């Protein structure tokens, strides 16, 4: 009896859904404060608060409750998360820089989700994520300035060109095992940047202007008006980036929770055994590689339009490493992990300028520490459940 009482950490326990909704709201308020925080002290305080909250959630079993909420009430929870994201964007309203950061983070997340399919699910490390992102951005630079292709289609074109150029790498990447294919992607990433720097048509080291996004006649250079107030034009990009991130997330989730996701896992874990059970290893790898590059290309195309000026320096090997570290920090194969890690890797250094200089060092140390002490990542991926709440579930 006494034991039972001792084991209950929180005397009044809310049902999982209520706990989950409160947590989402708390995260949204936190994110809003964080994006607006000006002084380094305030930012540092918030970072510490987040670390403590994360640690506390683990210790008190709150994170397990949240997992249950995500599992049993996925519809309501996902809806709440989307609503909070929209609310944060609306609240930021006129703040150019925070909105730009938020959108950048979301676009990095899209690319990281693609890399997670390649690396986390299929086991193919791609150290050229930023190059594929850059291919998308350059595609949108060329198409917005030289053609009248509707910009929404240009996003697709960015993904398509990234996939096509990626196809050049498919033979070496798919045929070589393990570390060699990683080396192939490193070489490609470096080559890509050098190619841009010497290519006068693509602007050389100075780079290119990119036209703005335009959806059915609505030019993204105009700030939308909400109840008589004109908001930052970045609100447009934040909304579209959110839409893209949600779409990429949902699609990647479906991929993971399908026979194809199972095949990708099997290929990562044991290629020979996979082939012995009829899995087409080459198809699985081509699929994963192409899928990831398409996501990176689409995200890059929108990124180019948003920052309106791109140069080879925005797509370096270091940026590729940042993308890979998002996947590693969050947890291999963990989609929510990638989302959390994208926040950490993209937003924190932007906010803490002292870190900006050392961010690569910092993330290297963080990734190494992670691999040593918590190799499954910040939000470890669980056992695959094909359908949330379905019978073939548990």
């Amino acid at each position: 009896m006494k034991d039972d009482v001792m084991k209950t950490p929180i005397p009044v326990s809310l049902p999982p859904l209520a706990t989950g909704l409160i947590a989402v709201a708390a995260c949204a308020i936190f994110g809003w404060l964080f994006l607006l925080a000006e002084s380094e002290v305030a930012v540092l305080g918030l970072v510490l608060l987040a670390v403590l909250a994360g640690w506390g959630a683990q210790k008190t079993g709150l994170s397990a409750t949240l997992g249950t909420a995500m599992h049993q009430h996925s519809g309501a929870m996902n809806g709440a998360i989307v609503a909070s994201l929209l609310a944060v964007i609306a609240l930021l309203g006129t703040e150019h820089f925070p909105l730009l950061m938020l959108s950048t983070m979301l676009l990095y997340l899209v690319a990281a989700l693609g890399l997670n399919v390649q690396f986390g699910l299929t086991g193919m490390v791609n150290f050229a994520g930023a190059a594929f992102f850059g291919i998308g951005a350059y595609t949108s630079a060329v198409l917005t300035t030289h053609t009248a292709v509707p910009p929404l289609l240009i996003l697709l074109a960015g993904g398509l060109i990234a996939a096509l150029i990626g196809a050049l790498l498919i033979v070496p990447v798919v045929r070589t095992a393990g570390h060699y294919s990683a080396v192939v992607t490193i070489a490609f990433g470096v080559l890509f940047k050098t190619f841009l720097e010497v290519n006068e048509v693509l602007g050389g080291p100075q780079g290119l202007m990119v036209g703005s996004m335009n959806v059915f006649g609505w030019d993204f250079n105009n700030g939308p008006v909400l109840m008589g107030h004109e908001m930052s034009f970045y609100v447009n990009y934040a909304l579209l980036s959110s839409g893209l991130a949600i779409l990429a997330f949902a699609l990647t989730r479906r991929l993971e929770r399908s026979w194809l996701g199972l095949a990708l896992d099997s290929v990562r874990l044991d290629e020979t055994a996979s082939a012995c059970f009829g899995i087409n290893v080459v198809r699985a790898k081509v699929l994963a590689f192409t899928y990831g590059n398409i996501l990176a290309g689409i995200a890059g195309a929108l990124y180019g339009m948003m920052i309106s000026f791109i140069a080879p320096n925005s797509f370096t090997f270091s940026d590729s490493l940042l993308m890979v570290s998002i996947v590693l920090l969050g947890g291999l194969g963990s989609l929510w992990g990638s989302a959390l890690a994208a926040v950490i890797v993209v937003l924190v250094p932007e906010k803490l300028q002292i870190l900006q200089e050392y961010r690569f060092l910092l993330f290297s140390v963080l990734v190494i520490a992670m691999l040593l002490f918590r190799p499954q990542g910040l939000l470890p991926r669980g056992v695959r459940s094909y359908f949330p709440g379905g019978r073939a579930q548990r």
Partner: protein
Amino acid sequence: MSEVLLEFEGLAKSFGGVRALDGLDMRVKRGEILGLIGPNGSGKTTSFNVVTGIYTPTSGRVRFDGRDITGLGARKVYEAGIARTFQRSRLCLDLSIFDNVMIGNHARVNNGLWFNLMNRRGLRREVEDGYARARELVAGFSADLADRMFAPVGALPMIERRRIEICRALVSAPKLLLLDEPSAGMTHDETAQLMDDILAVRDRMGDLSIVIIEHEMGVIERLTDHCVVLSYGRKISEGSYAAIAADPEVQTAYLGVD
């Protein structure tokens, strides 16, 4: 339909200077359990790897179910109806029991991109069907395991892993099952249990043929209809267990005396 399901003709496989298989002739009849035995390094596992297309033979033929499958590639061999387990367990330890069994069912499910991403209802039906099928198969080995279909395999003891490996091989309803030392790493009692399981499987799937590699002679004696003994990649004896056990050449090969 011929009585012979699998046939090797002068099968040879060399690794550099090592002749792992050196002109092996062998036949597996439909519905029989054949024991493949021989000292360490005599080429037993290599013969499985050649049949299943992991290695291409240096020379010789493999015929299965009336067709030449020499050098066909692992995926095609599987589709032809041959499934196997591995000497060292090769399950995906992070994945659930269900996932591991379903890997074996890969050729029977819809792997289309559109279907998997967009047709959630169709996929749901396939998952439910697959679940029922996998669960029934697992329940045939252990009711307890069948209640934990979504537990990760890595947490299970060796005997349970072996059972799941066998389920993974059986879920596609193969014509031929190749078992590579299923008793490896198990206690005496566990081995006995697994033997019961294998016999039960054979009773349930009447026309299934099995080739089993084993070092445990008790297992071979109990399970097999026919035995083939390898030494240095060659067949040195064959017949019923009693016949090969009495063969002086087999005794020499095992004891290493001349």
